[in-house]
């Protein structure tokens, strides 16, 4: 274990995707999927990332895992910059960082049994000589993992199609746990599940965190899910973080107009409250992240916009109590 308190630190992360091109055409432009993101995750906490489709939350997770090569920025895992590691070193470092994906149907190989899926990370690291485990130890680890995530060990030889959505997500979680990582990157792990199953899986995430001291980066578009699971929350819009704060603080006192609109738009399962509520209804859609913006990214849809918002981009600044917000309502342009 290293000395740093921050398990993961992301500095100035940018991920731009060129589009157009093809065989003869020139590059037409870029999608600024992630456009300068900074945050840190302390050991044992859960950082939730919320935002609408296209805000760059999944791309952020993938760029952290080095599934994409970031355009710019640093990703420090236990103080080591993953973007600068050689391939062999990166594989070793990734042992400490595993992913759980959204779609439990697409993220499991249909031709492998549950047991093989969970054992695969172990076998890969054994083959590369990073991990040494006997065959019996591997089998035992797989069985323990299955039981830990709530699957019977007798299901080891079954194929993914024999499981329900919730059970498949449990297989995905067991696979991510196999290498005993410190950090789990969870990309919308409960969005595809039914309500009653979603609660089971959220509880499982919490239990595993307590038991193994896991740290989560947890992505979801459901604000209530994020509130339940997170210690801190980052709100993303068009590839940048517009607000980041402790979870309780953010939900009690959202500062950014976008966060306020998001919270007000999310339905509450209570007819008495819901029918009396007044919503902030945003106009328009999320714009496409395909151009360089000089002003605030939220300018077009903001109900509190001012002239200065069109001219310069607000940066994340401290607003007290560990609450950071990127909005000129709370600080002046430099």
């Amino acid at each position, binding site marked *: 274990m290293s000395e740093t308190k921050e398990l993961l630190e992301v500095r100035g992360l940018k991920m731009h995707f060129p589009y157009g091109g093809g065989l003869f055409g020139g590059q037409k432009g870029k999608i600024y999927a992630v456009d300068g993101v900074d945050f840190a995750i302390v050991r044992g906490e859960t950082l939730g990332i919320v935002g609408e489709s296209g805000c760059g939350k999944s791309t952020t997770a993938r760029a952290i895992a080095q599934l994409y090569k970031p355009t710019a920025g640093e990703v420090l895992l236990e103080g080591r910059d993953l973007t600068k590691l050689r391939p062999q070193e990166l594989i070793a470092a990734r042992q400490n960082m595993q992913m759980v994906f959204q779609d439990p149907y697409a993220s499991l190989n249909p031709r492998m049994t549950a047991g093989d899926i969970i054992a695969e990370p172990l076998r890969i690291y054994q083959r590369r000589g990073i991990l040494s485990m006997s065959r019996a130890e591997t089998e035992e680890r797989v069985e323990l993992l299955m039981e830990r995530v709530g699957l019977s060990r007798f299901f080891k030889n079954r194929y993914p199609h024999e499981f329900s959505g919730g059970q498949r997500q449990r297989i995905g979680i067991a696979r991510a746990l196999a290498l005993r990582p410190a950090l789990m990157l969870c990309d919308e792990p409960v969005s595809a599940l039914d309500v*009653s199953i979603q609660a089971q899986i959220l509880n499982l995430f919490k239990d595993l965190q307590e038991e193994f001291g896991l740290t989560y980066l947890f992505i979801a578009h459901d604000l209530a899910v994020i509130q339940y699971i997170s210690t801190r929350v980052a709100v993303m819009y068009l590839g940048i973080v517009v607000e980041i704060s402790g979870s309780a603080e953010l939900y009690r006192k959202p500062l950014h107009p976008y966060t306020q609109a998001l919270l007000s*738009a999310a*339905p509450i399962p209570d007819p008495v409250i819901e029918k009396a509520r007044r919503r902030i209804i945003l106009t328009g859609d999320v714009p496409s992240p395909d151009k360089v913006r000089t002003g605030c990214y939220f300018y077009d849809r903001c109900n509190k916009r001012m002239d200065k918002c069109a001219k310069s981009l607000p940066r994340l600044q401290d607003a007290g109590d560990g609450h950071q917000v990127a909005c000129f309502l709370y600080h002046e342009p430099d």
Partner: protein
Amino acid sequence: MTDEVILRVKDLRTYFSTDEGIVKAVDGVSFELRKGETLGIVGESGSGKSVTNLSIINMIPSPPGKIAGGEILFMGEDLLKMPAKDIRRIRGNKISMIFQDPMTSLNPFLRISSQMTETIVLHQGLDKQAAKAKAIEMLRLAGIPAPEKRIDQYPHQFSGGMRQRVMIAMSLSCNPEILIADEPTSALDVTIQAQILDLMKDLTARLGTAVILITHSLGVVAGMCDTLCVMYAGRVVERGATEALFAAPMHPYTQGLIKSVPRLDVAATGERLSSIRGQPPNVIDLPDCCPFYPRCDKAMEVCRRKYPPSVDFGASGGPVAKGHTASCWLYSEAK
């Protein structure tokens, strides 16, 4: 909302035959819809909520599907006994629908204008010019900016939220009595969902359209619906006015469902969510028992033998509103 019942579904059964056996997707569903009412049907995947509504408009693919029994009375006429050409006069005209994914329900090769005017010309007997004017008017009502220009565009030129607005404009263009909305906002982001729900509520209230809203989201029904049906494994397990049902859910499944949703307005206390254990049942060859008993904390011996009758709580007076019914042995005398 008035007391005039415009749609009465009685003991509807829709079965699918598969290689593994008979799937009873809908197995004895009954409900009424009043003029101008918004009825929510909630349930998890596979509970039969979509199949119920596809049955109403007679769009069950057959084979393998088959409506095995029941009645669907629309303004007194049984839709199940009606010849196909008469149904066609009702579908899209008196009863219209919008689906979850606005991209797959619009034809990508046709301009919005041709898709919208087709229904108007067919059902309202307007000429092309008048139909286009009507379509533009509907698009404007649905909040699409510059509708006279947008109407000549193709579906891919619209965003997801805008496409759903087009679908709403299209489905309401013939002034239907009933709008069936099957997960209309599930593919949309929260801020867009709020816009679309707002629009649906506003337009249907203005036009006096009754709505059947199918969704898995308890938050959406809480804000939108007058009455609710909770479905589980092809049956309606609980029915009642939205406020009463949320205030005093009677069926253990409804209780579990409401408790298992994390709530925005309740600060996280670090406590575990209460969840419903186990998995939703496989509806193939389901025995005639309560389908919820393997997951139910209050299961009794009788629950695994017989399906419980529906109990009306309104009859006994008390705090629960009239017409609040649940199918559970906990409340039934006759065992």
